[in-house]
């Protein structure tokens, strides 16, 4: 074993230029594979984060439109026991009109228990000016709405909330938020849930119970578990996947195409190794013959060439990972989004890198099996006879 490894190493060392070329070939392949793989993962994570990262991934509503969920606190306690669920909170939602100078603007009013909902919406990070409402007569509006209607902090605005009360009620703008989505910023008005009870809504009801999950792509399975846990036919459970079939198929398509590119790159690397090692067996024809004449057996001969594949694969893959990661770091550094941050935030997943290293090494070793077997089968007398 040790001798086979040493001979393999010497063979590679002796043909330095050829060895360097093969290693570069593997490294370039692995660089492309790592670059594309991590970039696609980063892109997907960015898309998922910007689309559903700061919103509810599973929602529970009354099965009958327009009806509330009663005893929501008990239901929330039940939901919290389901594995993989986090940031469970309740919301009150109503269509409303914002009256300014005799004109009414249609808005969507949401009543939160802000501390509870902060886990999903990150209000503390998204208030661009002012504060989260602390009083019952306070509310916050989105950046776009404030710009459109020229509203400022501390301004008083009137709201008509027909499901609760038809007379306009006056509130003070305590803050302006930016949820990173222009349409939400323009249509949502947020206040404490207590404020809605104050103006006439009966207590202990919720329009929706919202939550996030640890594994966003398992939201459908977790939603099933939530439904089982609640065990109430009057309530309907929705998950983001069933509501975003197009996004999901786009993400799946992206995953598959990225995977295919990676597979083809690795396949071409493996074929290259197999063909180069086949040539290498021919080059080492004499050496193999004489080693066999000296009594090296077929297994050790096989190992000499298998180890060459292993050394080439491991070195090339390690170099490829270093190059791939360097390329991604440069990409993050130089390709910026309009906000100044990296266009795509890359997650340098160690498992992905270890997997790339392992796959490239194993496929290089597998690629060397055919030439290794050829070497093992070589008849020493042919070498002796032919000189």
């Amino acid at each position, binding site marked *: *074993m*040790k*001798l086979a490894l040493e*001979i393999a190493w*010497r*063979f590679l*060392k*002796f043909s330095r230029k050829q060895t360097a070329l093969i290693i570069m070939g593997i490294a370039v392949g692995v660089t492309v594979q790592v670059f594309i793989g991590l970039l696609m993962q980063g892109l997907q994570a960015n898309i998922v984060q910007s689309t559903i990262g700061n919103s509810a991934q599973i929602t529970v509503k009354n099965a009958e439109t327009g009806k509330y969920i009663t005893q929501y606190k008990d239901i929330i306690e039940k939901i919290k026991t389901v594995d993989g669920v986090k940031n469970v909170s309740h919301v009150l939602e109503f269509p409303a009109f914002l009256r300014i100078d005799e004109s009414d603007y249609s808005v969507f009013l949401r009543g939160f228990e802000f501390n509870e909902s902060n886990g999903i919406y990150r209000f503390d990070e998204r208030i661009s000016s002012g504060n989260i409402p602390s009083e019952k007569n306070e509310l916050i509006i989105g950046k776009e709405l404030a710009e459109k209607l020229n509203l400022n902090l501390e301004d008083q605005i009137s709201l008509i909330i027909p499901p609760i009360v038809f007379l306009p009620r006056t509130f003070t703008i305590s803050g302006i938020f930016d949820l990173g989505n222009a349409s939400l910023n323009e249509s949502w008005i947020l206040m404490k849930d207590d404020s809605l009870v104050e103006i006439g809504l009966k207590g202990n009801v919720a329009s929706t119970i919202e939550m996030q999950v640890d594994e966003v792509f398992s939201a459908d399975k977790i939603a099933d578990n939530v439904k089982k846990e609640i065990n109430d036919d009057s309530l309907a459970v929705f998950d983001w996947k069933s509501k975003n079939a197009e996004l999901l198929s786009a993400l799946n398509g992206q995953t598959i195409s990225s995977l295919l590119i990676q597979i083809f790159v690795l396949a071409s690397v493996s074929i290259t190794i197999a063909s180069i090692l086949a040539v290498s067996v021919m080059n080492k024809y*004499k*050496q193999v*013959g*004489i*080693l*066999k*004449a*000296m*009594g*090296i*057996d*077929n297994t*050790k001969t096989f190992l000499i060439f298998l180890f060459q594949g292993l050394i080439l694969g491991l070195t090339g893959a390690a170099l490829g990972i270093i190059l791939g990661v360097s390329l991604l770091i440069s990409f993050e550094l130089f390709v910026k989004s309009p906000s100044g941050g990296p266009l795509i935030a890359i997650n340098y997943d160690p498992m992905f890198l270890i997997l790339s290293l392992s796959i490239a090494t194993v496929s290089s070793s597998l690629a060397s099996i055919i030439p290794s077997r050829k070497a093992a089968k070589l008849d*020493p*007398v042919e070498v*002796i*006879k032919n*000189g």
Partner: protein
Amino acid sequence: MDNVVKTNSLEKIYGTTIKTHALRGINLEIKKGTFNAIIGQSGSGKSTLLNMIGALDKPTRGYIEIDGERTDKMNSRQLSKLRNRKIGFIFQFHYLLPEFSSIENILIPHRIAFSKANKDIVRFANELLDEVNLLNEKDKNITKLSGGQQQRIAIVRALLNKPSIILADEPTGNLDSENTEIIYKLMRNFNKKYGITFIIVTHDRNVAQMTDRIIEIKDGVINMDLLKTA
């Protein structure tokens, strides 16, 4: 004296459509510790015989015994072990590994058997290198040595595992007369000193005449078997 090699009605036929009868029933016994020459013209079958004795080639009919063991009953692994432990080879072209230094080349047969070279074997290798006057060249890459030096290294390599028999196929065929003489004397010396049997295939009658026994192969049969008396 025991036989180290015995061949029984050895035949070798090459080809399937056009058959070439290289050996036609060779019966030969080689005594332990002797110094033998096999001579014959090109194509007479002498190298074929040597390759079969060395378990590199298989006979079409008949069989060979090395130290009393039939090689036709052995599997590939046993044949490899036999070549490694009991047989040493010296070829016309030295067939050293250019990837290794002189001493490393010499130690390879031992390392094939035991993986690691212990101190005793390294000391023995150094002694042998000293005997062939190449101790100073031991760490040099093999490609840096002359043809005569390379062949001396090949002789030391063949000798290292103290095999029962050393098979040499035209060992001086590629060398000038001065180096031929050196190589011959070395082989003779090792034959006497370590009691190793030598079978040397040569077309050089001068070399052959310096051996104890001359076996001439002609058209695949033994044409002459001349044993010198002391």
